[in-house]
């Protein structure tokens, strides 16, 4: 690519003339990034997903963010409020943030506490359709105490009060710009949603939804020698494989985001010597969900619904079967075939942060077909002439569904063969992601309806606190016709003990105590076998060898340290 060569040439010339290139704002020319899912809006509160949050993170910032080791670091805040420094009230019902002084928006106006209070009002408006609304769930009020102090008070005691304004999913927007965009007017503010004014290292220059975003450096950025890049191009569209190719093989781009492709493809491309594949691990776990209620179509309305335990699954209600299914899986092969360096074997639904990861379930790390077969034999499941086990006329025949994605279909095929070894028959089904993860109550193919015996997908939680995540398996979270199939408890697990422990977690303060409870919750789910964790998945990307400063981060947006990115000399 002669364009790129020209670019590199210009960059080198700039470097030669710059006395201290590393410390010179805008000295490194253009940064070119590929997002195969293109950003569609730059207001993360109205966004369609991670890609939009990333695209906005160049520009707007939260009060605090997570670094690549899951530590909270101040961004627009001067420090992280804690009980010790008096920022968090002793009764855990309010938190006071001290803001960094001397920060200005890219239009030159000063950043103040009023902007923070306005952002809360914007997102908490009932008609706004703000997707960060759950962060403000227990918030009673957000007030500007003075220009550089904000107090957030909660309706209940919050042992972990860092929901609002922490992480790139909940940044601060400018009051002056968005004042006219409250509530139902939010979507009509196209100019604002396409070009938010921010405090970050870059500002939006041009935005073509679902195609290209161009940024240029923010001259008013608070660190005078940053950013190193004068401009950024984020190009969208295409697929992950060709995105990897454009960075690793042709060198047209500097960074490719989210490369969920078979590892050998990336490894082969990496050999071209132009770039490097990087990954980071957060809390994302690829898991099997076990259907504990009966999904038989003959049941009509009662299909896949929880009836106080009176509608059990014909064979998955047997603990021996659930345990055997997990034992029969060789997770190392799943990782090797589908994830490579972007995956690790896990036996927990809560795999991180390290303090929260249990070791009680490590039996699942090694495949044990013999033990699985023995369990099933003892439980009375006898192999028929076709090799498939049955008991009292019930065959171990599983319908296994997931979303369409070549890695997932590979995993499905591998697991089908592993289960075949213990006399379990599997029919595979894949559903387009827009249908599977959709929530059309009329569609039979959603993950909430779960009209199958086993389903597979990946899930995680925001930030580092698992409370809301672990509360997903409460009885009231079971989806069903009564709540329009809205709920997080896909396996339809319901256990009084679990409820009690989860309620305790909501009241407990202190990392160690909270971690101990969260681990016990995880172990209860694992012992019961309501979910079968497969792979702890990392975020994976590729960057050009000439790109420096990248610290891929699974706890926050990739752009959390974009101000430090530079061209390697």
């Amino acid at each position, binding site marked *: 690519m002669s*364009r790129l060569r020209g670019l590199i040439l210009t960059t080198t010339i700039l470097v030669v003339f710059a006395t201290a290139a590393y410390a010179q704002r805008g000295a490194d020319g253009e940064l070119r990034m590929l997002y195969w899912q293109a950003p*569609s809006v730059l*207001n993360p509160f109205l*966004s*369609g*997903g991670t890609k939009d949050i990333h695209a906005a993170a160049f520009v707007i910032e939260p009060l605090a963010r997570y670094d690549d080791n899951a530590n909270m670091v101040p961004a627009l805040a001067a420090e992280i409020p804690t009980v010790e420094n008096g920022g968090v009230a002793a009764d855990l019902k309010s938190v006071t943030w001290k803001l960094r002084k001397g920060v200005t928006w890219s239009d030159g106006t000063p950043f103040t506490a009023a902007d923070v209070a306005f952002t809360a009002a914007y997102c908490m408006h009932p*008609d706004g*359709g703000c*997707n960060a*609304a*759950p962060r403000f769930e227990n918030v009673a009020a957000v007030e500007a105490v003075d220009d550089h102090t904000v107090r957030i008070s909660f309706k209940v005691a919050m042992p972990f009060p860092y929901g609002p304004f922490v992480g790139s999913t909940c940044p601060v927007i400018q009051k002056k710009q968005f004042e006219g965009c409250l509530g*139902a007017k*939010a*979507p*009509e503010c*196209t100019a604002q*949603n*396409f070009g938010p004014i921010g405090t970050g290292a870059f500002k939006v220059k*041009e935005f*073509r*939804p*679902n*195609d*290209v975003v161009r940024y240029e450096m923010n001259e008013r950025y608070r660190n005078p020698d940053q950013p190193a890049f004068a401009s950024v191009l984020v*190009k*969208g*569209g*295409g*697929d992950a494989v*060709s995105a990897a*190719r*454009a960075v690793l*093989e*042709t060198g*047209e*781009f500097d960074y490719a985001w989210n490369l969920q492709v078979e590892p050998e493809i990336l490894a082969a491309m990496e050999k*071209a010597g132009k770039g490097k594949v990087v990954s980071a691990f957060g809390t994302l776990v690829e898991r099997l969900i076990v259907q504990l209620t009966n999904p038989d179509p003959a049941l009509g309305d009662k299909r896949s619904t929880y009836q106080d335990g009176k509608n059990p699954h014909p064979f998955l209600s047997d603990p021996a079967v659930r345990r055997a299914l997990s034992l029969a899986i060789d997770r190392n092969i799943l990782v090797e075939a589908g994830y490579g360096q972007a995956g690790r074997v896990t036996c927990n639904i809560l795999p991180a942060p390290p303090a929260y990861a249990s070791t009680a379930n490590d039996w699942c790390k090694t495949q044990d077909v013999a033990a699985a077969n023995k369990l099933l034999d003892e439980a009375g499941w006898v192999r028929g002439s076709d090799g498939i086990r049955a008991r009292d006329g019930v065959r171990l025949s599983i319908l296994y569904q997931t979303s369409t994605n070549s890695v997932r279909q590979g995993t499905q095929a591998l697991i089908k063969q592993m289960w075949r070894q213990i006399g379990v028959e599997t029919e595979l089904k894949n559903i*387009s*992601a*827009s*249908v*599977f*993860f*959709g*929530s*059309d109550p*009329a*569609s039979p*193919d*959603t993950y909430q309806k779960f009209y199958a015996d086993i389903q597979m997908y*990946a*899930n*995680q*939680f*925001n930030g580092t606190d698992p409370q*809301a995540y672990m509360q997903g398996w409460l009885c009231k979270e079971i*989806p069903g016709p009564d709540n329009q199939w*809205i*709920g*997080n408890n896909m396996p339809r697990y319901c256990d009084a003990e679990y409820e009690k422990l989860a309620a305790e977690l909501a009241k407990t303060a202190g990392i160690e105590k909270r971690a101990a409870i969260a681990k016990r919750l995880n172990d209860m789910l694992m012992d019961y076998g309501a979910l079968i964790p497969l792979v702890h998945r990392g975020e994976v990307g590729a960057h050009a060898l000439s790109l420096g400063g990248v610290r891929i981060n699974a706890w926050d947006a990739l752009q959390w340290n974009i101000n430090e990115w530079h061209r390697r000399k």
Partner: protein
Amino acid sequence: MSRYVARRLLFAVPTLLVISFIVFALLDLAPSDPTAQLPLTIPPETRQAIRESLGLGQPFHIRYLKWLDQFLVNEPLNLLERMWGIEIGDSAGRLRVRSWATRAPVVDLIASRLPQTLTVVGISYIVAILIAVPVGVYSACRQYSIFDQAGTFVTMVGFSVPTFFTGTVLIVVFSVWLDWFPSIYDTTHRVTDLESLLVQVRQMVMPVMVLGLFNAAQLSRFTRSSVLENLNQDYVRTARAKGVAERGVILVHVLRNSLIPVVTVIALGLPTTFAGAIITEQIFRINGVGQLLIGAIEGGDIPTVQTVTFIFAVLIVAFNLVADVLYGVLDPRIRYD
């Protein structure tokens, strides 16, 4: 003929209304969900609130009538305002058709996508016609010659190998190995001088080749078979017997009469240059109307899908009318009244 055209145009209005209604109903029935692409960390209750804020809580007929009003009344008014710089009524309060995924007016999105779609897909179509018609005619005149056999082979392979395959092969060969052409299309590139024109040509070579080959394959088969059919007609024998030169026979008599299927295929193909070529746009990241449409379908973005589809329907109806008129021109014996 003009009475026929007038009647057809009049009939087109209810046809298009019916099409728009059926498409809207279809999209409403389809199980896609605008919140399906949000991260799973966003809880179901919030998703429900987002859906409500998009207006999905309203009954079906209200949403349909709203779309009709926004697209058929408000958008044309906006266009008039912009063209003449005047203000008609309450222009600030007039609601436009907004995409759910980007929250931007759909018409603006389409307008920003059209240049790349029309350049790449349009040019590839012209290339296809320029290759296919001569090749088809020549193949037919020299049926079973080496040229014909080779042409048959190339076109059939060209059609049976899908564009997702040819596109990737071209990228691997010409971008990775040879480093001749960029693998990614830059939609923001502006042609201002000779050098930038060269850049534009270089980035268009591969997509135009992929699409052109595919379309040319199909078109040349129809041309060849139609010319073959006509070569044996009585009037050709008569013309030959009368001593008309072979070239004249082919160009004047045969070609004209052979064009009916060719016109049909082209008329069906031209509206698709607006709708874009989904797979080719995806492979080379051309991000035209096709990519807009596929993204909207996957994201359950009903207003965008509905609007793009409706404009597409208008083009289909229009071009099929043009084809019917052309039939009459090509073969005066065809009468509609």
